[in-house]
């Protein structure tokens, strides 16, 4: 069995991977707020952040700094230990769950070591179970925050979210059972590989088609699980002020914030893996010319950023934006010019990230469009509609699989 720390080098490599992933996730988190604000702004015919840095690109940095320098008062009468523990717990669990996600199939060879993209060991045969176990613990952060704040709005927010997260947890788990049955494994890599059984089918081989019902149940439950619009009741601003984190300020608030966005990323990754073929390309394997798609997208968008940069209002923007554009274009060109294996290597992460980005966009899109459910309606929706639907999905899937085994269809 492949062990995480077979040698000392493996330990160092894992530690390095943790640091890199942490850095990447936190940066992506920061820019996810920028992305969200920008997209929602354009949905609402506004500009969004555009003062700090070109196109507001330094806004996340400014926000982060602000979080650090804000006063961090502890309200009177709080349960101090739990009050401080809650944000830590929320953040730690959210970050742990992302460690179990594999980001690409092929290792990077480096000094005789195969470095895989993702922290979890290759053959973690409880992958999805472990992931659900960790995300399920996430409710503690929210519930404890609501309880320990010694304030009524957080209390209501905490209660709401405990009920909501526990109910939707059930649907979340049930809705992926169909996928697990089809793949015959809990391992996230095996689930992706199972979707590549017929490389010629491309996008048609993905789980989303036979599991369309499961997918809808999963995605809805996932939105509820991450407390996002239209299920953002725990922090429903217009009702509960800020819900469970009303009494948190400064960096402790930032921790909740990062935790929420990290869970958004995790859930988008899961959706991609379970239903949208993970890192698989949507095109049939024989269409090798589609391997140049990353370059085809990168080069024009890089050139566009350069063009846009030249016309930007501020001098800083006219320097920085063309720089970024040049980097993007250079990357695109490099993929064509450099030896073939580099381009092949980039395919998997490229598709994985594209799909994750698509899901994140859907999250933001919903926020810009939908009103909010009421608490009891949310519960009724979860228990009376989503859960039965996902159970029906499990029964149907098992029936079809059994029938195939019985009558020997391939």
């Amino acid at each position, binding site marked *: 069995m492949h062990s995480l720390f077979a040698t000392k080098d493996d330990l160092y490599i894992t530690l390095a991977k943790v640091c890199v992933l942490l850095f990447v996730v936190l940066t992506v988190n920061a820019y996810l707020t920028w992305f969200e604000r920008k997209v929602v702004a354009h949905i609402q015919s*506004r500009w969004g952040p555009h003062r700090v840095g070109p196109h507001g690109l330094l806004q996340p940095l400014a926000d982060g700094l602000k979080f650090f320098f804000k006063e961090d008062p502890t309200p009177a009468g709080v349960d101090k230990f739990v009050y401080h523990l809650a944000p830590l717990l929320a953040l730690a669990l959210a970050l742990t769950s992302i460690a179990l996600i594999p980001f690409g199939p092929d290792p990077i060879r480096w000094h005789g070591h195969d470095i895989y993209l993702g922290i979890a060991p290759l053959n973690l045969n409880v992958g999805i179970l472990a992931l659900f176990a960790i995300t399920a613990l996430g409710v503690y952060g929210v519930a404890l925050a609501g309880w320990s704040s010694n304030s009524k709005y957080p209390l209501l927010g905490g209660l709401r979210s405990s009920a909501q997260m526990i109910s939707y947890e059930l649907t979340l788990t049930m809705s992926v059972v169909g996928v697990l049955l089809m793949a015959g494994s809990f391992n996230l890599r095996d689930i992706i590989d199972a979707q590549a059984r017929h490389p010629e089918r491309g996008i048609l081989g993905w789980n989303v088609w036979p599991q369309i019902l499961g997918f809808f149940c999963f995605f809805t439950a996932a939105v509820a699980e991450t407390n996002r619009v239209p299920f953002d009741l725990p922090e*429903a601003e217009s009702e509960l002020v800020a819900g469970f984190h009303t009494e948190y300020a400064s960096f402790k608030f930032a921790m909740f914030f990062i935790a929420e966005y990290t869970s958004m990323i995790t859930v988008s990754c899961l959706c991609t893996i379970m239903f949208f073929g993970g890192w698989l390309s949507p095109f049939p394997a024989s269409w090798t010319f589609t391997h140049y798609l990353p370059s085809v997208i990168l080069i024009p968008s890089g050139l566009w950023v350069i063009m846009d940069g030249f016309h930007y209002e501020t001098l800083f923007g006219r320097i920085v934006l063309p720089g970024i554009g040049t980097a993007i274009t250079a990357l695109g060109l490099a993929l064509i010019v450099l030896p073939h294996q580099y381009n092949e290597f980039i395919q998997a992460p490229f598709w994985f990230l594209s799909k994750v980005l698509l899901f994140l966009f859907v999250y933001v899109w919903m926020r810009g469009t*939908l*009103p*909010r*459910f*009421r*608490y009891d309606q949310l519960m009724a929706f979860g228990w009376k509609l989503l859960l039965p639907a996902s159970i029906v999905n499990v029964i149907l899937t098992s029936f079809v699989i059994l029938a195939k085994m019985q009558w020997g269809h391939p």
Partner: protein
Amino acid sequence: MTTVETVTGTEKTMVLNMGPQHPSTHGVLRIVLELDGETVVKAVPDLGYLHTGIEKSCEDKTYSQVITLTDRMDYLNPLGNNLAYCLAVEKLLGLEVPRRAQYIRVMMVELQRISSHLVWLGTHAIDLGAMSVFLYCFREREEILKIFEMFSGQRMMTSYIRIGGMALDPPPGWRQAVQKVLDMMPSRVDEYEELLTQNPIWIRRTKDIGYISPEDAIALSMTGPTLRAAGVPYDNRKVFPYSSYEEFKFDVPTRTESDCYARYLVRVAEIRESLKIVKQAMEKITDEGPINAEAPGIIPPQREKMKTEMEALIYHFKIFTEGFSPPPGEAFVAVESPRGELGCFVASDGSPKPLRVHFRAPSFINLQALPKLVQGQLIADVIACIGTIDIVLGEVDR
């Protein structure tokens, strides 16, 4: 009497203090809620956080100076407040306002109604989590405020309607500006409806929420869209027409469900009706004609006349130093504000300052239905109910 102090809670219930600082109490309204879980057992509104003493201040101003105070009462409907006050004083003086000025008044007040309903729709939508509708509504409201600025030089506190007529003639190019809004609005209202009217979440959040029977609504003397959504077609513009409303063709939208959804539909329909009225008013307003009544000593004389006529100069001096004195007596006039029946009572003792000015504020009176509306509902519904009563705290507390 139910006061805030009587809400103490029991072993099973919790007392939640909503407001005066709360994102969706539309200002500084405070409601003390007694909750069983999230269900409201008892709700008691607590008012007075925005008390400015406007009515009392009126007694220390001349009749013309009061107009600027009325602007600041219901800050989403300044022109309507101006109108109610001016009509009351005109009644006291027995002034006949020229037709042209009356049409301009109607047009401006209806534009104001649209802008007020837009603010209502936007804030109500954001209360229920539909964030984008809020910004769409404010985008259109901005266009209407630009028209106000064009007419009077002010976006909100216009003081455009004056005793005996208008402050200024309509500016050049006003027809194009108003026509632009008329052309734009119907499709924009469709856009809001597209996002909300058939939206299953929106329907779930508003349908059968905050029901009040027509009998109760009348007993609580509710007026405006809230009453019309209960099926009572009471509209001052139809029942007691003022300012030439009898010449305009428009419908009074009513619903019978009397829930938050019905109130939403009534207000959206009212936006469309107001557009009709604005269109008719635009056709009726002639390019030439007087905008002020023939009443020397009450209407400030024109600049040119002051330079040639001694009389005009004396009147000007008298009006701006002392004011004018209506005969002793009382007058009450009610207009239809976006929120309901806005009444203005003015009493004169023959001096240049009013003896008493009182406003029958629709927000204040409709608000007393709130405890009834939210009884037995959830916290989230309290927000929806406050929203659909459409209160403006500046008017509630005056």
